[in-house]
């Protein structure tokens, strides 16, 4: 292999490392949500646009959670919200707010888009 080839190989390795770090090394800080509504329901507002913001939400364990998904795109990837632990697979309307309600049991409950490409989690604490 010529020096140029070594250069190409090294650049490829660096690029691969970067790609994997960029997409998989993401660590979102959890955002805590508490009951603000008078009925004791925990309101969680999530923006859906190229991902979920915030993506990790802490709620009091056992609380009724009202999750409002504010979807600001029509990318079919975020057409649905899936929360397997609560048997939820709901359509999420484009450019609108969609509400899903569930009772957060203790532990980490992953949620994702219909095809499992966009991710987030509800943590019952």
């Amino acid at each position, binding site marked *: 292999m010529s020096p140029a080839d070594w250069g190409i190989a090294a650049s490829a390795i660096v690029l691969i490392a970067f790609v994997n770090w960029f997409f998989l090394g993401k660590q979102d800080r959890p955002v805590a949500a508490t009951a603000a509504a008078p009925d004791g329901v925990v309101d969680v507002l999530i923006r859906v646009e190229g991902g979920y913001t915030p993506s990790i939400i802490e709620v009091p364990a056992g609380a009724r959670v009202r999750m409002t998904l504010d979807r600001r795109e029509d990318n079919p990837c975020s057409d649905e919200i899936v929360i397997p632990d609560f048997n939820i697979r709901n359509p999420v309307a484009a450019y609108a707010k969609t509400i899903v309600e569930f009772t957060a049991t203790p532990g980490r409950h992953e949620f994702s888009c*219909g095809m499992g*490409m966009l991710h987030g989690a509800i943590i019952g604490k």
Partner: protein
Amino acid sequence: MNSTPDTPAATRITLPVDGMTCAACQANVQRALTATAGVTRANVNLMTHEATVHYDSAATTPEKLVAAINDTGYVSRLPDPNADATVADQAREQEQRRDYNAVRTKAIVSLILGAAAMIVSMPLMSGSHAAHSGDVFLRWTMRFDEPVRSAFPFLYAIDPFRVLLALFVATTLVMTWAGRHFYVRAWKGLRHRAADMNTLIAIGTGAAYLYSLSATFAPHWFAAAGTRPDVYYEAVIIIIGLVLVGNAMEARAKTETTQALRQLARLQPSSARIRRNGQEQDVPIASVQHGDIIIVRPGERIPVDGVVTHGSGAVDESMLTGESMPVEKIAGARVIGATVNQSGALEIEATTLGQASTLARIVTLMKEAQGSQAPIQRLADRISAVFVPVVLSIAITTFAAWMIFTEPASLGASLTAAVAVLIIACPCAMGLAVPTAVMVASGRGAAAGVLIKGGEPLERLAGIDTVVFDKTGTLTEGLPKVVDSWIAADQDRDAALGWIASVESKSEHPLARAIVAFAGSRDLAVADSVGALAGKGVAATVDGHHVIVGTAALLTESGVDTAAMTTQVEAWSKDARTVVAAAIDGKVAAAFAIADTLRPNAKDVVASLTRRGLRVVMLSGDRQATAEAIGRQVGIGEVIAEVLPDGKVDAIRSLQRNDHHVAMIGDGLNDAPALAQADIGMAMASGTDIATEAASVTLMRNDLASVEHAIVLARKTMNTMKQNLFWAFAYNVVGIPIAAGVLYPAFGILLSPILASAAMAFSSVSVVSNSLRLRGVSLS
């Protein structure tokens, strides 16, 4: 989701509230509602502009709640409960149709432009390496070099740079118009460090475009590097076109997977004709109250669950139970909202409303079922999560390997291979493999009256090897009937039966009712001085005759000579019949053999299940002899008898030993613990009781054949899921290496990005189409 049924008096309603802009408005409305008499709880949501009110329907009405909100200055109105759902549904459908049409137009225009671009590019490729390239598609297109040359000779005379300019303009237009969303979405994802299918397409086509751009405007760079300045404009256009075709087809197929649920949700009528204060009036369904009398004319849909108070008619329940024969309803019969009264006028008292109604619960159940995940999906999910970064890594490796190992190194060939890898990779097929099958299967099940609570139960149901039937009420009708009778030779049959029946008509005992039913409709004389004889029978005086009805032992104890019937009674007892005897004026008069009769198709269903390789077991609280007699009749060899209700759980547990997977079929009420213990609990729905908690499968149709339907559906669905997953995995596992060029060194075969995009477009469509096949699957 909360599907706890409200009790009849405690009702919940969601009302729209317009005009709220801030938390103070929200508080105002909330205060007003809470202050209204009869309201137990009110939640006002500022974000959705809705108020959810729990109220006592005896103390207030939805109309009063609306008035209370309107008094605050904000605007509410009585919701048409489905109108909202239907309107939203229709809006979504319209939007989907619009999207579909837009995407289709873009796809068609892109493909036409792509074809034109290919023809125009012919002169550029002519005489180049293309004819001898490893790229199968490119080699194939070069066959058209000669025909194009003779058809459009002028193309070969134009200045190549002008052709390049034209291609550049066309590609830029297609990318910014038809393919714009790929780049916008990929960019939005990148900002969140998230990647999906758009990322792959955007990077793939983007790289090819930038390369072509450089080749067009700075060919000297390539000359300096010793590479030909090839362009890939036509590939970019065609890739976008083909991916759009795939998107459009996938979107269309996906909406079909939830068709059954949408059809079900639309069944609910929006208004009801009720009689209040002697006046008939049409009212919105939301204002129907518990206890209202509803008039249903022939041909109309029954608006709510209720009990027939007047009239009779044949009701078509096929939409909920899958049973095609109409069911005759008379006064006292339960009817289910959304079924159709085919003949005869009915008056119905409303019993269950709103979210507690049968239809609403079926819809909720199905929504949850379709939202549930099957365990088999987990692997696919784990792969999807890392899919895009892994594919990007493979593409980078492909590019580097081509640059390093081909001699002379060709930037164009390396880029082509890397782009093909990005384009062929398809995470969508993997994501769609299982959920689409679950959706279609739950719809197919509902159409046949089989409600399965989700992907996991479906999967478990497919894996069961033992089927346990509860005897009473499941294998049998659950209604004792007189199956044989004996009347003493010295008795007048009609008179004796009449007297016995009139004594028994005073009793609520199931055996007594069986005898009354057997005696048929006759004018019964009034029985006087009826006395119950401690669990053994009754004695009374009818028309001046002293009549005793009860066990044979009771008659003997009362000093009656029972010798005349002994032979008959012994024969019946051997067949596990229950015997009831009667004496009139101290002489033995009659005896009846009573048994719970088998359901008509019980034997066929058991035989059919056995043929499918399932071990069939019967569970019964009856005496061993009785249970075994029923077992013989129905063809079940394995009988577990004399089981107390709490012993059923142990019985199931012992059947589960040695890794056996057990399905238990019971009535959902008495058998709840056993249903919960079994791997799969199937409840035969009785009347409107569908949401049996303990059961993961509810059989809406009062028919044992549904058991087999459920098992067949689960097994076929499981097959579909496996086929889908295999195809989705195999497609990527085989497709990506070929695109990267692993076949090139040995066979000289390369996959062009154009073929890759065609493969990708159809891989997810094929998965959804395979799931849709379940709609028409035969369940028997």
